[in-house]
């Protein structure tokens, strides 16, 4: 366990400052190839032949270095560091292109975030009241005619209903029970809960339940 922690710290250190480890590796590989060449020359090979034989025996140098880098460092930190460096260089070479790209990305992110917020607020966010899905929208009609402003009721109707219905749940019960407009006007109660119900108002006027419209906050 201690070995693993020690290793993680060493890898992090190498990821952040790879220069030292890289120089060490280059030096060590050169030394290794030199020792191999010495050995082959001692067997009678020419310097060129010894060099070739040493390289063959060592294996592909760049591949070996790459494997060692992956092992000594954290490749994703290495990659991220290189990406950032490239980004900064590119930004300094063509600043206006960078500013345009950054602005475009910022606008896209802002747009997406706004759209997401709206969709969430309208479609998914629960209402701020308990049993929010029981809220109803009501509308008053006279002789089958809707009012000048749709989905509104007069103050008198409102007050009469609220005297009996203080919450949406109560209002639904009210609609089902047929409590209605004390003034005798026909009242259309609209809610899913009372769809198909035929209610009669207190004053004797019929109260029809229409297609419901859930209320969203």
């Amino acid at each position, binding site marked *: 366990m*201690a070995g693993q922690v020690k290793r993680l710290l060493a890898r992090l250190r190498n990821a952040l400052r790879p220069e030292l480890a890289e120089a*060490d*590796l280059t030096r060590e590989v050169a030394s290794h190839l030199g020792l191999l060449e010495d050995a082959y020359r001692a067997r009678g090979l020419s310097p060129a032949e010894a060099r070739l034989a040493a390289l063959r025996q060592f294996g592909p140098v760049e591949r070996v270095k790459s494997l060692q880098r992956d092992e000594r460092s954290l490749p994703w930190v290495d990659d991220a560091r290189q990406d950032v460096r490239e980004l900064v260089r590119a930004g300094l070479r063509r600043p206006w292109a960078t500013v345009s790209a950054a602005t475009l990305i910022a606008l896209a992110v802002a747009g997406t975030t706004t759209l997401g917020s709206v969709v969430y607020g309208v479609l998914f966010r629960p209402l701020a009241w308990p049993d929010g899905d029981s809220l109803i929208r009501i509308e008053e009609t006279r002789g089958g005619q809707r009012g000048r402003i749709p989905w509104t009721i007069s103050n008198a109707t409102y007050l009469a209903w609220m005297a009996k219905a203080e919450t949406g749940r109560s209002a639904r019960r009210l609609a089902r029970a047929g409590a209605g407009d004390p003034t005798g006007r026909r009242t259309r109660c609209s809610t899913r809960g009372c769809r198909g119900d035929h209610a009669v108002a207190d004053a004797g006027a019929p109260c029809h339940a229409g297609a419901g419209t859930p209320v969203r906050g």
Partner: protein
Amino acid sequence: MASERAGRIEVFQGTLDLIVLRALSTMGPLHAYGLAARLERVADDPFPLNQGTLYPALVRLEQKGWIRGTWGRTDTNREAKYYAITKAGLRALESETGRWRRLSGLVERLLADRG
């Protein structure tokens, strides 16, 4: 070339670590070339090891604190990084050896089992 590749032994990561620890514990400090040469000598068959493949194992063991590398000079006056096993490395060698024996014993029994 093809026959050489066919005879090549795949050395798994943990196995290579164990081999390196064992070689350093018996031979004392060695550089990477010395380690590779030692492996080639110990193997009964020619051991077609790409010597560079030792480097990931060496850096892994060094980062774990199981071996320590220091720069020195060879007999031929070339500079080389010598690796020595540490106390933690000796303890790791003991536990890794036990693990290897259990694993190889299991594989051996499975291979010997005729049904």
